[in-house]
């Protein structure tokens, strides 16, 4: 690695090796981000399509017909099967492509080498493959929207037998096949990336970068990668068995089924087995989505409060505790599957334990703000917003974790409200905070902060405007994944919320245009960035603004202190970068 010295700028790279098949972690990070932004636009558009139907059922929308054609939106009214396909693909894209591939892919790639003081990822080649698997899998998922019969429609959880039997619904045909193929490629991408992140963090830390000096972003990304590497293979197993049930006549998940006039030759399988396997990934997955966002906000909140993050060790401890617990709670998605009630009790216990490390994190954030000297950069706005969504959404999880209460709210809009606030909004806020904070590092230019503030407030107001009222729709007993609620009189009194929710969704979706514009405009026309715009302590801000291969033009930096020496009374400045040696007699943290 020592060979990486000043002559970097000199040898010309071809366009292809620089922008397309790049091995450089900074470029790969940008590739992930832009792909994720594109997928995010698709997922938001899908949600607006089906929110139109929910807000004004039976109303004709020319725009639906324009986008979806006569087959899926004849006369501008969304087709019932198309509705389910949109919901399914919206959820799939948001969870996997935007908030797993996109979020981890962008920030693990950007921040791990830069914040631990490494020249690049352990394997640049694997890293490149990880992106290409991700891209191909994204394209296949998008392609599935256009096949005969439509995209997968059984929900992002694709429970068999619905997903296993093409005769059960049109979306379980080719659309489901493509969904499954896309997911296998996605997992391959995730594993290639995850292994790389873990190895890099463990082996390539620069001199002095002890584990207890790592910024919390890196800790969060490390635990996220470990969760992914341990849980995604289980999803592949589940998917492979499902593919066999679909194509080879096996019956892992099928038993005693009579459908479309035929008694199928299947006995002895269990549909519930799939759910166990799926949620063994599925629950860690929500923390795979959430932890990087929490890591990012820890960094942003400390920097902009000009204060050390409160309880650094407790923060690490709670990330580890959440990571561990997330593997033994999957059954809370299955209280009403007929699972043995005693096993349900065990899952109630383990699930509610997660509230403890989560509470520690929330209070530590708030204490970090206390007596701080807060600069409200757009990144900081999103991070404070994240603490609010994390708390607000987390609290309703207490109700869902309680099996006795879940009986009545399972699979209702209460769940939709809960997970959108705690996972959807928090993770999106974390991701946006990260983009606003590290944009100067990625593109050498600044984002426009005025647009950033407008973007934040519109997103915050519309986000809560969409998802908070859904709690009430849910406890009134409105099931999720329903195309229309007008059949049920007992819901009439909450249904007047739906047009309002949909209006907020449309405004909130449109507000993202501010961000998209700001992002692409600033790549070329933004104000030129300085080296350390936020006066931050971490190593990435010691690299030159212009990217160089190997990150640091000279020798690798040496680390002398933790990442959170903000407003340290022993120093004049209100920040002390990690590369600054301890003063004589200075007390180290």
């Amino acid at each position, binding site marked *: 690695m020592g060979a990486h010295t000043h002559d970097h700028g000199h040898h010309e790279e071809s366009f292809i090796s620089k922008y397309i098949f790049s091995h450089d972690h900074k470029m790969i990070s940008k590739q992930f981000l832009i792909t994720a932004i594109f997928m995010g636009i698709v997922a938001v558009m899908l949600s607006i399509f089906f929110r139109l139907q929910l807000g004004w059922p039976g109303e004709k929308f020319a*725009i639906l017909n324009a986008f979806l054609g006569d087959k899926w939106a004849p006369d501008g009214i969304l087709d*019932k099967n198309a509705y389910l396909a949109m919901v399914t693909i919206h959820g799939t894209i948001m969870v996997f492509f935007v908030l797993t591939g996109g979020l981890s892919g962008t920030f693990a790639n950007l921040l791990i080498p830069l914040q631990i003081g490494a020249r690049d990822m352990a394997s640049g080649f694997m890293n490149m493959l990880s992106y290409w698997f991700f891209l191909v899998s994204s394209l296949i998922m998008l392609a599935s929207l256009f096949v005969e019969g439509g995209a997968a429609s059984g929900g992002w959880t694709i*429970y068999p*037998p*619905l997903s296993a*039997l093409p005769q*059960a*619904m049109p979306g379980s045909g080719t659309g489901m096949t493509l969904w499954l193929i896309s997911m296998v490629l996605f997992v391959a991408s995730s594993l290639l990336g995850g292994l790389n992140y873990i190895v890099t963090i463990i082996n390539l830390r620069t001199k002095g970068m002890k584990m207890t000096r790592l910024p919390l972003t890196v800790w969060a990304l490390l635990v996220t990668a470990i969760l992914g590497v341990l849980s995604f293979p289980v999803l592949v197993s589940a998917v492979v068995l499902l593919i066999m049930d679909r194509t080879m006549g096996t019956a892992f998940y099928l*038993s*005693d089924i*009579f*459908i479309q*006039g035929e008694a199928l*030759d299947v*006995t002895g399988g269990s549909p*519930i087995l799939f759910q166990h396997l799926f949620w063994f990934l599925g629950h860690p997955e929500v923390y795979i989505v959430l932890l990087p966002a929490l890591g990012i906000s820890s960094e942003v909140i400390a920097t902009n*409060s000009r204060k*050390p993050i*409160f*309880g*650094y060790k407790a923060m690490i401890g709670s990330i580890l505790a959440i990571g561990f617990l997330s593997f033994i709670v999957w059954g809370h998605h299955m209280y*009403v*599957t*007929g699972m043995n*009630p005693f096993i*349900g009790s065990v899952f*109630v216990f383990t699930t509610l334990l997660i509230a403890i490390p989560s509470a*520690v994190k929330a*209070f530590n954030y*708030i204490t970090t*703000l206390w007596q*701080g*000297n*807060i600069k409200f*950069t757009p990144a900081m706005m999103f991070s404070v917003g994240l603490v609010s969504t994390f*708390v607000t959404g987390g609290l309703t999880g*207490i*109700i869902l974790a*309680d099996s006795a*209460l879940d*009986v*009545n709210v*399972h*699979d209702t809009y209460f769940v939709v409200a809960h997970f959108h606030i705690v996972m959807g909004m928090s993770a999106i806020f974390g991701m946006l905070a990260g983009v606003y904070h590290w944009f100067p590092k990625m593109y050498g230019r600044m984002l*426009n*902060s005025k*647009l950033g503030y407008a973007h934040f407030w519109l997103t915050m*107001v519309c986000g*809560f405007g969409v998802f*908070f009222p859904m709690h009430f729709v849910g406890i*009134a007993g409105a*099931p999720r*994944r329903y*195309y*229309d609620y007008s*059949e049920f009189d*007992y819901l009439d009194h909450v249904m007047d919320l739906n047009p309002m929710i949909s209006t907020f969704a449309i405004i909130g979706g449109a507000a993202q245009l501010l961000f998209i*514009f700001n992002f692409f405009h600033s790549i070329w026309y933004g104000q030129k960035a300085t080296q350390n*715009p936020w006066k931050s302590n971490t190593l990435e801000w010691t690299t030159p603004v212009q990217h160089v291969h190997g990150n640091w033009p000279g020798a690798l930096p040496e680390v002398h202190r933790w990442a959170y020496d*903000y407003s340290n009374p022993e120093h004049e400045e209100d920040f002390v970068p990690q590369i600054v040696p301890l003063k004589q007699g200075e007390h180290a943290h």
Partner: protein
Amino acid sequence: MNLFILLVVVLAIIAIAQLTKVYDLSRTLRNSREEEVSAADNRVNANAWIVWMFVFFGSVIYLYAKYGDYLPESASEHGVAMDKLMSLNIWLITIVFFIVNYLLFTFANKYRFNPNRKAKFFAHDNRLEMLWTLVPGVTMAFIIVYGLITWNNITGPASADAMKIELYSKQFDWTARYPGENKVFGAVDYNLIGTTNALGMVTKEGVAQKLAELDHNIESTEKAIADGVAKGTMPDSYMESLEEQLYKLKRHKQRILDLKENELNGQSQWLAGADDKIVKGEFHIPVGQEVEFVFRSQDVIHSAYMPHFRAQMNTVPGVPTRFKMKPTITTAEMRKKLGNDKFDYVLLCNKVCGAAHFNMKMTVVVDTPEDFNAWLAEQKTFSGEGAKKEEAAPAPASDTTMVAQTKI
């Protein structure tokens, strides 16, 4: 319309672009940097947190006031306990919601940047951290214990005199079955399902009839194969599909031959179904009587959800599931309470199961015991009116999946 929307979007983007340009220009003129949050920006945003807090809290309180009374009072015994647990939990999380968000937004507001001040260097405090580990810990312990006691009561075994009712789901309707006089459900098997036997009831005649039908089909398939071979001109794909058809028919026959006639309470289960009563569209239950539902599903997973009774259980093909409850308020009483004489309890599907998932429902009627008995007496038994008649029960419009059993 579309053109109009497009136009608005384009204009909006142009407007933003122009504004940004002006803004960038003024920034350059003032020589200010993007990362240096101006005092004005910081003040506006710090104050906005408080404005937001009032708007947010105000809307939340409004929503609680207007929609918090979410469902009519519980119409089942366990539901009352569940509602108590629910309101306790809601109170608790609502209080924490207000406190934590209040702290967050007011701290954000109060500790805004001031160039003359340095933040407090406060890296950790074991006592504080212990506090917010222990308080949630103790609270959780309480919630867990209280929750699990309720859970055990809900899911404990049904009492011996509970009335059993089977609820059977398929795309996209429900069927209910009562065990009849003998209190024993007749045997069922999915291999016997057909146009005249929607639940797959197993009876001697039914088995014989099905076997005859299969034998007939096997014979004609074999004949078709023989003809094909004789002709020698049929495409391979056609011959293969016939072979496959034959294989399936033989497997189907074998599965029926494998059925065993079990005894329960000294009675053959193949005979026990004769007095079973099968109903569609609506089913009745008597007030004050514990009911144990047994759920089965024909095709995919559905979920039997009865929100007014706070009851839900998935129905899983191949895996029977159960849920017990005791209804406490008759439909008539509930109508009076709500002042709505059209009110009905419903059973609906709460697991996505296909295009018509959203209107797969059945009416639940809670009667006084006398009314219930009178209603049940009116219902036909499975044998009494013969398997044929059962078809005449009000068939829902969506009953189109019931096409001929075997097609060649």
